[in-house]
Every structure is written in C-alpha cells, then in structure tokens.
C-alpha cells in the first residue's frame, strides 16, 4: 500500500512540474493526448493486464463516449450531462455485450471484441445524418453555466487531474479483495470459481469499468479537440491502445501510463524522420517487445531490484 501511495505521488508531482518543461502549445497538446490515452490504458490494463481478458474493441467505447458528447451537446445538452449520458450508455452496452462474449476465451474473445468495435465504428461512419459520417463532426467546448474549459493550459490540468483520479481508482481497486479476485481469474479461472469468485460477474464488472473509463476519456478528447472523427472509434485505435498497455507492461498501472505516454510521444518525435516514421516506429515496437517481453516497466523494475542487491 505504501508503494501505491508513492506511485500516485510520483505521478501527481510529475504532472505538476511538467509544464515547466513545456515551452509551447504544441507540447501541451502532446501531453494532453498522452494523458487521455493513459486514462484509457489504465482502465484497459485492469481488463487485459490484471484479469487476463483481451479486448480489441475498446476504441469503440472511446468513440461512443466522444460521439455521445458531440451529438448531445449539439442538441443543447450541458456538457457534463452529455458526458455522463455517454458513460451510462457505454456502461449499459458493455454490460449487455459482455454477458455473452466474456464467456469466450483467448483468441475467440479477441475476435468478438474486435467485431464489436468494428461494428460500432461502421455504424458511426455510416449513420452520417447523426454523426457527420466519415468527415466527423464539430464538438462544443466543455462547459457549464457560461464557464468553460478553454485553451491547452486549462485542459492540461483537467486531463492531469482526471488521470491522477483514474490511477488512484485503479490502484485502490487492485489492492482490494476485488483486485485479488480479478488477478485470480487471470491465474486460474477454475480455481477462482471454486474459491467462490463469481468469475462471470467479475469479468463483466471490469469490462464495464474499463469501457466507462474509455467513454469518459473519449468525451474529454472530443471536447478538447472540438472535433470527432470515426477513426477514433476504429480498429487501428483499438490496436494502438492494446499496444500501449503491453508495451508499458501488463499488470502494472504505472506501466500502462508509461506505455501510453511513450507511444503517444514517440510518433511525434519520429515525424522528423518523415518517410521513415512508420518503419522506425515498427522497428522500435518490435525491438522493445523482443528485448523486454514483459513490457517496459516490469523489466526495468526487475533490473532496478537486481542492481540494488
């Protein structure tokens, strides 16, 4: 528990001092995008890293959250209410879909979640009267009663605080009997069930929780950029999210944050390589996973512990 407090403190301090190193709006923008991805990844890591259940469709939930905010605020709904509505809709959908598909295992679960995500993104792309179709749609600023979040700096603090809250939530959850039950499901579903863990219920619960976090992050992202497009709900975005989780290190909340930040920043750095960008990104991803198969943070932790002995 003391370690969790240290992690949280480290993160909060890091977020608080980072602006001193952010010279202009572009850097703030990258930091905000990294923070939004990190929120999704911390939730997704509860599902993938701790419970051992893959999802290749979480961008669908992210997209639904974003579009719920875009569409509802378009009809004059206050932004926080639209955000809450998006979260409730996505939570209900995840509970509904999760019941049958979480019975599937391994690659079959990957297939079903992938299918679900793709269906969501196709619906968003096709129903253009509501969603603006492939061109996307504009989103009103996030605000209430005449006050609103404007500019990169304000958004930086909103996203930073949201991330700290999400990480606190995840750390608390994992350090509890609920977290232990989730990890037990990862270790052996049979033994967990025999020890009285209602496996189906817990899987559904963590699936819904991670989906709701993705939806909330989607809402924030939509309001921040003032624009949503179907790509945010698409297959490639789902893959990016899973990659961030695995890259940072599965079953490590801080790892999920680190993975999200690095894989958001890296493509920005690689843009100087122009045509070589994709090539380098692919090579770095492969190389890191080959050298550090457990992901960045768990590997570094092991090295650190060995160095101290």
């Amino acid at each position, binding site marked *: 528990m003391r370690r969790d407090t240290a992690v949280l403190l480290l993160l909060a301090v890091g977020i608080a001092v980072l602006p001193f190193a952010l010279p202009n709006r572009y850097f703030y923008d990258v930091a905000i995008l990294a923070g939004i991805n990190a929120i999704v990844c911390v939730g997704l890591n509860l599902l993938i890293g701790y419970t051992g259940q893959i999802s290749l469709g979480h961008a669908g939930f992210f997209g639904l959250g974003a579009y719920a905010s875009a569409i509802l605020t378009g009809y004059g709904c206050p932004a926080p209410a639209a955000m809450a509505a998006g979260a409730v809709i996505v939570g209900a959908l995840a509970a509904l879909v999760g019941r049958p598909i979480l019975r599937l295992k391994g690659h079959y679960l990957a297939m079903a979640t992938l299918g679900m995500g793709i269906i969501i993104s196709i619906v968003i792309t096709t129903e253009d009267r509501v969603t603006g179709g492939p061109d996307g749609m504009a989103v009103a600023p996030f605000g209430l009663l005449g006050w609103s979040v404007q500019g990169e700096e304000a958004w930086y603090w909103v996203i930073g605080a949201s991330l700290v809250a999400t990480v606190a939530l995840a750390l608390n959850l994992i350090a509890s009997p609920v977290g232990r039950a989730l990890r*037990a499901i990862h270790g052996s579903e049979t033994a967990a069930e025999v020890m*009285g*863990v209602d496996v189906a219920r817990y899987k559904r619960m963590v699936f819904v929780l991670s989906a709701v976090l993705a939806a909330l992050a989607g809402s924030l992202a939509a309001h921040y950029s003032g624009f949503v497009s179907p790509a945010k709900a698409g297959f490639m975005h789902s893959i990016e999210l899973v990659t961030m989780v695995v890259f940072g290190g599965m079953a490590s909340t801080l790892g999920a944050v680190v993975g999200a930040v690095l894989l958001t920043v890296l493509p920005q750095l690689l843009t100087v390589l122009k045509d070589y960008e994709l090539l380098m990104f692919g090579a770095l991803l492969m190389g890191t996973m080959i050298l550090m198969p457990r992901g960045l943070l768990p590997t570094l932790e092991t090295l650190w512990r060995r160095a101290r002995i």
Partner: protein
Amino acid sequence: MAPGPDLTALSVRGVSRRFGGLVAVDNASLDVAPGVVQAIIGPNGAGKTTLFNLISGLYRPTQGEVRLLGEDVTGLPPSALARRGLSRTFQNLQIFFNMTAVENVMVGAHLRSDARLWSAIFRPGARARQEREAIRDARRLMEEVGLGAYLDADAAAMPYGALKRLEIARALASRPKLLLLDEPAAGLTPPEARSIGTLMRRIAADGVTIVLVEHNMRLVMGVSDRIVVLDRGRVLADGRADEIRANSDVARVYLGKRMRTARAVVHA
C-alpha cells in the same frame, strides 16, 4: 438450515456423466457422514476426478442428484457451492502463479472479504485494516499446513510439494464444511505423503468432512474412515478400510491391475 446429526455431509444419488459415447461416471451413489475422511479409490480412468468435478460443480451430471448438507445442489456453479461450504484441491495444480503464496490463500477467503466494487475503490482506509487481518489469517493458515518457510514467497518460486500444501491452505481459508482433496500425495516423497496424512487427520478433527481421491494405498488405508471403490464409472464397493481390503472384487479389479503393473516393472 443447520445440519442435524442424522444429515449426511454429502450425498451423491445415481449420478451419471457421459462425454459423447463415453460414460465416465455411471449411476454412482455415495453417502458421506459429517466429520469423516472418505476415500474414493479405483484404477486410472475409473472416473474419480470426474466424480469430483461433478460434486464440485465443474461438470453438470447427465442424470442424478448431488446433495450438500441435505440441500439439493445439482447443477449449481462452483462459486455457489463454495458459498455453501464446499472447497477442493486439484490433481493438476490450479495455483494462481501470478500471485504470492499468501495472496493465493487470501483468495480462498474471498467470500469472507468485502469484495464490493464501491468499497474497493472509495474506502481504502477501512479496507487496509481488513486486509491486514486477512494477511495475518492467511499466514497463520500457511504455518498450520507446514508452509512456514514460504510466507514471503511468490507462488511461481515454490517447489511442487509446497504447492500441494498451498492448495490445501487455500481451500481451508474458505472455512469449508466439506473438503475435496484430489490426489494430495501424488508426486510426493513417502515422508511428505505421511505428513499430508497427519494434516488430513488434523483437519478432520476440526470437524471438516474430507473426501479424498488418492492412489497411495498406504496413505488411504491409514487415514480413511470409509472407502468407496470405483471401476469404469461404477461404484464397486463401499465400506470400512478392512472391509475393502477383504473384498475379492476389489482385489480382482484394482489390485489385479496393480500386480500386472508390478510384474511389468520386475521384467523391465
């Protein structure tokens, strides 16, 4: 409903289970009185583990009825049976290798913990106190089953014999009324097996009913109050250890195979 003295701890009535054309358990019946150590023996493929899986809810019986402390529990999922006081260990270890040994045991106490999402996320203070208690309980339990040397170990770093005991500790953490042990001595050295026997008697003395599947005959004969012999899914004999030893059917089916194996070993 409190179990009266006339109540059986476990009652299996005419239970069958088919897998396609194969009848793994065929109309098996068995009554286990509270507080006894009941062994189930039989040659490989006799259906012992299948019967365990039927009792503990991992399989649904094709027909028949399972009663736990008088209540019909046929077809209930394992987690529901755990809530009614049943726990078990596994022939092929089902350890949570992604956790420490203590955490493994703590999962056994899952049903006694406050495992609600709300308190997990928003009441870390209250939870921390409960967790400290849960850790203390788990460590004490580990010491009781002879795992005092592994109190700070990761499950993945423990030797096979210790993992066998860890499964027993995890099962005991749920404070079961009925404990199913699937080959607890398999792969253990004779002294280790003997000490598992002592442990079983101690658990039974605390009032826990034990049903045991085991191939180590010395252990079975030494520890069991009653023995059921399965052969090809059917109950062949049911009685006290001395009755089973004297039963000619059992000698033919069970020991006969043993003798052939023994001869094969001699000639090898």
